[in-house]
């Protein structure tokens, strides 16, 4: 008895799974029917699905389900015979009935006796509206479908009293005329497999890989050839198997998309809007678990698009758009990730509204809001407790949600972005990894154990060398920070973040920069990380609450590694606050953010002589073999895939007869050139004292004393003039009357820029700082045509100098070009606020000359 009960249970279980699958496509089919885009096959498909549900339900004695399915089926039959038009009203009734059917199926065992009278009533009412005579075409179609009533001998446990029976049997594999339709709908064969089983297979395949690795190690070198071959084969098969098992977890995005036509339809009705839903890229595949986790955030975003995005027909017409709005769901691959976009052609998001909203809510001050770029302002919708709907509705916009959407997506290792034009529409794009199951990761050791950081979180690895002032950890207001390319990033020791004792001084010389959401920070680690592909495993219940960990994995040698959650760590260590503090600190005090201006590449050439070039103009340093170097006319050139590049040799530097030499590739606007070195000594970044008197010579700006000896600082302008003799200064004649005041505190730069300008034919007066320049201007302001100033200078900086000029009665109109090595938007804004005419990056001589050219004579 209990056996047969078990059997029954199992049958019902199968029925539920199968019916749910059948019905999942029905909704979309119904909607396309309503739209008029469905064809006969669409109706037939809906019909078949409902019919098979009915059949099995009656076999299992699920009477209520059977009754509802039967009534649905007869209604659909009328549609199929084109005696009923799939109007909006009919579709609503059908959809509601299908919904009911689904919920009955969900609890199939208790479905008998459920009251479905209202649905039956509504369906019968619709049936009553059927026209008597179908059109001839429709009759013909129905005939074709119904004709081959084949003697299907599969045990179809259907009650065969309805007219539907013929159509269904017509679809059994006995009929030739239906083969095409069938293959079109059914696709390749498939079976249903439990996710648990797939997960187990994944685990086991992972173990198999470990086993394989051990076998390969064990075999060693001395093993017989045949054993090696077998092992190699095994290794190949295992890898392929793992990949195949991975793929079993992938599902088409369309399974996620398919519920949206209904949502959009229902919402449009509720909101009194007209809206069409388009889908693109439904075939893109994603890991099942990701798809599941995306369902809620996506629903929220689509609802938002409908509620806040798409306008009412009246509004749309007033705005010159068609009455019907459009929401597009789009999925595509992008660089190893999948991008899903939700695009609407609605009202767009007005950044100003968001700004004022943020101020209203006390999230920021007026000034802060004004400073926000439009893009950042739009990102505010993801801030906790933010809702912009002018009226709260039950559709969306309770201000809980968008922040949850974002954090849910970030938990999946993805990110969400927003693009919007007021009046044009909004696009929300979600970028997520293909699979959560296997991902590339970096493995770091800390206090004897290994931890794993997903590669998607890591932006950069920085190795800190002792005595390298360029990249180093500084203390700013009690906070440790890394100075990196003009930025200050909060850093934390990994051991400290995890609350571990570090055994002595490991050096802590590597920084892994990680990013999560908007927060970027560095994790200090002792040894450089390894990379590994990992399979993510969930944490047990005891560890689930731990913010620092996102999961765990089994490393290549079988050991367990904990996966770090970079967002969690930033929360635990309060790094977001640290980042904010650093930003203010960096703005308010000089923490040496500006990379020291005299970064020099020091190299030997000309028989062991030391030379230096500003690092800023060195594009790269590479090996050049003798074969790559060639003489064209009397000039040496370097041939590479990119083309030919002139090479300047310093006196007494021989080109290598054979073997290779070091080639410093130097920037000169958009044309590079090279110079040969015997060896590169070092990159020196501390401030150096340039002696611009003693060793000054053509091509040499001055000299520097270093422990290795005297270094001659080369004049890159002279070098490039040698490299490109043809680009001589024909304009020089016209420039001789143009006078430029140059303010620059770095002796090296002063000499360099002055030389570039003189080379170009300008008359240059050099000043050592802003004060000096100001005195010059006050004494003889009228004779200058343009001021070129460094930004960071002692006594009076470039911005101060600019302000003084702008405030002066007669000098106010003088063009001021600011030179900087730090070109951030912020710095630019500050410069503009002070009245700088143009902001230029140092060491780009061509741009500099072009900018001067642009600005002389425009004295207003």
């Amino acid at each position, binding site marked *: 008895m209990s056996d047969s009960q078990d059997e029954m249970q199992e049958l019902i279980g199968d029925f539920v799974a199968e019916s749910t699958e059948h019905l999942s496509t029905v909704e979309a089919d119904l909607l396309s029917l309503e739209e008029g885009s469905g064809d006969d096959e669409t109706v037939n498909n809906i019909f078949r699905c409902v019919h098979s549900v009915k059949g099995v339900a009656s076999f299992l004695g699920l009477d209520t389900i059977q009754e509802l399915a039967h009534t649905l089926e007869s209604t659909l039959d009328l549609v199929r015979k084109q005696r009923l038009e799939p109007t909006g009203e009919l579709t609503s009734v059908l959809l509601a009935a299908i919904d009911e059917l689904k919920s009955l199926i969900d609890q199939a065992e208790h479905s008998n006796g459920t009251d479905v009278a209202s649905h039956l009533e509504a369906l019968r009412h619709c049936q009553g509206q059927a026209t008597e005579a179908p059109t001839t075409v429709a009759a013909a179609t129905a005939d074709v479908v119904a004709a081959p009533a084949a003697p299907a001998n599969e045990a179809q446990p259907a009650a065969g009293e309805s007219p539907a029976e013929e159509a269904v049997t017509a679809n059994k594999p006995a009929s030739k005329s239906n083969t095409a339709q069938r293959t079109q709908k059914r696709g390749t064969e498939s079976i249903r497999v439990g996710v648990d089983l797939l997960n187990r297979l994944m*685990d*086991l395949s992972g*173990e198999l890989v470990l086993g394989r690795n051990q076998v390969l190690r064990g075999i060693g070198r001395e093993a017989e050839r045949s054993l090696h071959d077998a092992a190699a084969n095994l290794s190949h098969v295992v890898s392929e198997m793992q990949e195949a098992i991975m793929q079993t977890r992938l599902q088409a995005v369309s399974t996620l998309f398919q519920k949206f036509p209904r949502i959009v339809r229902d919402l449009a009705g509720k909101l009194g809007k007209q809206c069409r839903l388009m889908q693109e890229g439904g075939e893109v595949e994603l890991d099942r678990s990701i798809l599941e986790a995306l369902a809620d955030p996506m629903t929220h975003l689509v609802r938002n698009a409908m509620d806040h995005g798409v306008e009412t027909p009246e509004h749309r017409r007033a705005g010159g758009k068609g009455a019907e709005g459009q929401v597009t769901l789009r999925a595509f691959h992008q660089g190893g990730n999948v991008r899903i976009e939700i695009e609407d052609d609605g009202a767009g998001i007005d950044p100003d509204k968001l700004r004022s909203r943020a101020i209203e809510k006390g999230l920021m001050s007026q000034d802060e809001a004004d400073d926000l770029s439009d893009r950042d302002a739009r990102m505010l919708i993801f801030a906790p407790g933010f809702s912009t709907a002018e009226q709260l509705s039950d559709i969306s916009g309770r201000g809980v949600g968008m922040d949850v959407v974002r954090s849910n997506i970030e938990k999946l290792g993805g990110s969400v972005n927003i693009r919007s034009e007021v009046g044009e529409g909004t696009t929300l794009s979600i970028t997520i990894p293909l699979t959560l199951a296997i991902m590339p990761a970096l493995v770091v050791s800390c206090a004897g154990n290994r931890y794993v950081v997903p590669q998607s979180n890591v932006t950069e690895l920085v190795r800190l060398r002792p005595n390298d002032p360029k990249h180093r950890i500084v203390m700013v207001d009690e906070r440790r920070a890394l100075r990196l390319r003009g930025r200050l990033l909060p850093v934390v020791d990994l051991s400290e973040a995890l*609350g571990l004792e570090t055994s002595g001084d490991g050096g802590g010389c590597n920084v892994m920069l990680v990013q999560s959401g908007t927060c970027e920070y560095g994790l200090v680690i002792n040894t450089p990380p390894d990379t590994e592909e990992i399979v993510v495993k969930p944490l*047990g*219940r*005891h*560890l689930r609450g731990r913010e620092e960990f996102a999961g*765990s994995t089994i490393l290549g040698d079988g050991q367990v590694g904990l996966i770090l959650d970079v967002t969690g760590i930033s929360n635990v260590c309060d790094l977001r606050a640290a980042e904010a503090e650093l930003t203010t600190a960096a703005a308010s005090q000089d923490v040496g953010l500006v990379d020291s201006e005299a970064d020099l590449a020091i190299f030997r050439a000309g028989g062991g002589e030391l030379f230096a070039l500003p690092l800023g103009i060195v594009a790269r340093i590479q090996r050049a073999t003798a074969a790559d170097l060639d003489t064209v006319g009397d000039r040496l050139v370097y041939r590479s895939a990119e083309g030919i590049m002139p090479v300047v040799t310093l006196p007494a530097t021989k080109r290598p007869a054979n073997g290779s030499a070091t080639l410093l590739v130097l920037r000169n606007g958009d044309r590079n050139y090279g110079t040969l070195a015997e060896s590169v000594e070092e990159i020196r970044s501390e401030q150096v004292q340039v002696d611009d008197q003693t060793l000054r010579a053509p091509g040499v700006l001055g000299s520097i004393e270093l422990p290795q000896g005297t270094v001659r600082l080369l004049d890159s302008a002279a070098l490039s003039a040698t490299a490109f003799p043809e680009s001589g200064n024909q304009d020089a004649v016209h420039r001789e009357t143009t006078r430029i005041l140059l303010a620059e505190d770095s002796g090296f730069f002063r000499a360099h820029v002055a030389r570039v300008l003189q080379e170009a034919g300008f008359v240059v007066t050099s000043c050592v700082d802003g004060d000096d320049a100001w005195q010059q201007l006050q004494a003889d302001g009228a004779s200058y045509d343009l001021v070129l100033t460094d930004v960071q200078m002692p006594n009076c900086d470039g911005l101060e100098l600019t302000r003084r000029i702008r405030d002066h009665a007669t000098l106010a109109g003088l063009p001021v070009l600011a030179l900087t090595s730090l070109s951030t938007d912020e710095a630019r804004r500050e410069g503009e606020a002070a009245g700088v005419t143009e902001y230029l990056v140092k060491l780009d001589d061509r741009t500099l000359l072009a900018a001067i050219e642009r600005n002389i004579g425009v004295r207003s």
Partner: protein
Amino acid sequence: MNRATAPDLILCRVGELTIGIDIGFVQEVNRLVQCTPVPRMSPEILGLVNLRGSLITVFDLNLVLHGRPLKRSTKTRNVVVDHDCERFGILVDAVGDVLPVDGQLLEPLPSHTGADLAGYLDGLVEREGEAVLVLNLGAVLRCEVAAD
């Protein structure tokens, strides 16, 4: 007072105590190979272990029951139990016989049992004149929550 029948037990040595673990929970007994500690966890949780591809959290029963960390020896065993659909490892000093019930009733704990210890026990059964303390697995697995 109604006394429950004791379950079949696997006998383990934990310090000087003989502990019985309901065999219904026990999946396997193995030697703990390598255990990865988890930073900032309460010390009762030794860490995570790879059990043929799945990860289990391992508890130090010595530390739970009488506050002394386990001393690893060749007899140390990891008892893998299945509780609430999740697997755990319970590390004990040694594993002995299986004690069948034979309809024995669960005796109440002697009154002098410390309250701390008593919280992790269901009762005791006698075996050859020796008391076998029956472990309340749920309580042990909750110990970390309790420790907070």
